[in-house]
């Protein structure tokens, strides 16, 4: 199964299986990755599943849509909502980091 690697605020790395077509948020919530809340279940409203994309992966992601953009405007660079990133063969092995808080 494709994998995504989440680096937490404390530096620990967690490798999570993500089914093809499954969102990184769902996979992270199911794997109990701390710091990914996903409160709205992926309906692009809560902005509590932010992740920062590691260098080299950004250009492979699906295009940022206006609604997502308006939810993450103030976040650090290379931030995306993990609910909007579904696994593809191209994204197998993607490295992302989880912010210290989803609520800042």
């Amino acid at each position, binding site marked *: 199964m494709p994998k995504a690697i989440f680096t937490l605020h404390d530096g620990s790395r967690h490798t999570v299986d993500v089914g093809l077509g499954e969102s990184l948020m769902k996979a992270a919530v199911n794997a109990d990755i701390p710091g990914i809340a996903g409160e709205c279940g992926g*309906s692009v409203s809560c902005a509590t599943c932010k992740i920062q994309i590691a260098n080299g992966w950004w250009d492979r992601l699906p295009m940022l849509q206006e609604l997502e953009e308006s939810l993450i405007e103030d976040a650090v660079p290379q931030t995306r909502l993990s609910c909007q990133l579904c696994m593809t063969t191209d994204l197998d092995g993607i490295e992302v980091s989880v912010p210290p808080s989803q609520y800042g």
Partner: protein
Amino acid sequence: MHTPAHAPGNLIPDHVPAELVRPYAFVLGNLTSANPYERMVHDVHRHYPPIFWVKDVYPGGTPAWVVRRFADLRAIYADDKHFTVKGFAPFAMLVGDSWDLVPAGADAPLHDAYRALLNPLFTPVALKKLEEKVRSVAERLVDGFKDKGAVDFREDFAVPFPVSIVLDLLDLPQSRMAEFMSWEHSLLHEMNLANIMSATRNVVDMFRQVIKERRVNPGEDLVSFAITAKIGERHLSEDEIVGFCFNLFIGGLDTVTTNLCWQFRRLGEHPDEQQALRDNPALIPDAIQEYLRYFSPASTFRTCTKDIEIGGVAFKPGDKVLMSTTLGSNDPEQFENPEEIRFDRRATHLAFGSGIHHCLGHHLARRELTVAMQTILARLPEFRLGNSEILTDLGGVIQPRSVPLTWQA
């Protein structure tokens, strides 16, 4: 054939085991002079089964299941195959109207169409233009009492603050403040059904009048938005526009008021926390996140539509389910020592619900709460909770009736 859950009187349906029938304090009409978050909430977790049956917890004194675990509540929020939101706030039904709350009273897929329409209005970016307004309202209210040395924080800040902002979003004059506040109180804290009905009628009539005016003279406000908005090729119906306005009224006012009350009561009782936030205001968002968890005040309902078993308990079609964010956010299986406030917890909780119905206005609510705390801590010296007795309503929304604060003016 089981006895329907909505059977009159105290009849317990056949599928409800007698040992799961429990008395429960958090019911509309009940009051306490204690702080229910200190013990009562945690005692439910200590002494009750994960799911229990309460004879009178649904408005009107009828029964419902109470689910206390975070994981079970989150699963029910996500399960629209077995549960519907229909009827979770029966205001329209009370007055014989046909509208539903928009978006809270709709199931998928209609709900998703509503949210696609409304989500962009309530994102942080969309709310930026409100920032100045929110801050100036907070400053004006604090300046109104800062030289007095004492205030009922509920009456002079927590109630008018969100009302003022919602009036602005609706482009209604601030002179309607008192009227709004009294209707809001009757809707959500009144025990007398006739008064709830008359407040519902007043609010709906007011919105129907505003809708009529805005159809002729549209502006930049949310009512005008709803009038011109389209789902696919169609405009919203009159019922949908009324449901949207009513949802804004019951969702945008009292919940913010309630959280402000609890947060400032807490700060008045815990000068150490107050000092920590004065010393480092950057902690305020994390502190608010934790206070929202600890003091989650609201409950909604779901209705079972299809047989399902959860944790060995059989839910039957028609059964009501109390979705208590209070209990879910204080579940010791989810949160280590939930009775402790820890600013660095940064935990996901249920204060805004979970899943597709997760509160549309939560970015605005967080903004209002953050600005209120920043402004008050910057403008008031150390304050303490006064000595007078505080009564707290335990039903629907758990809210103290007063928050007396004192300081050296």
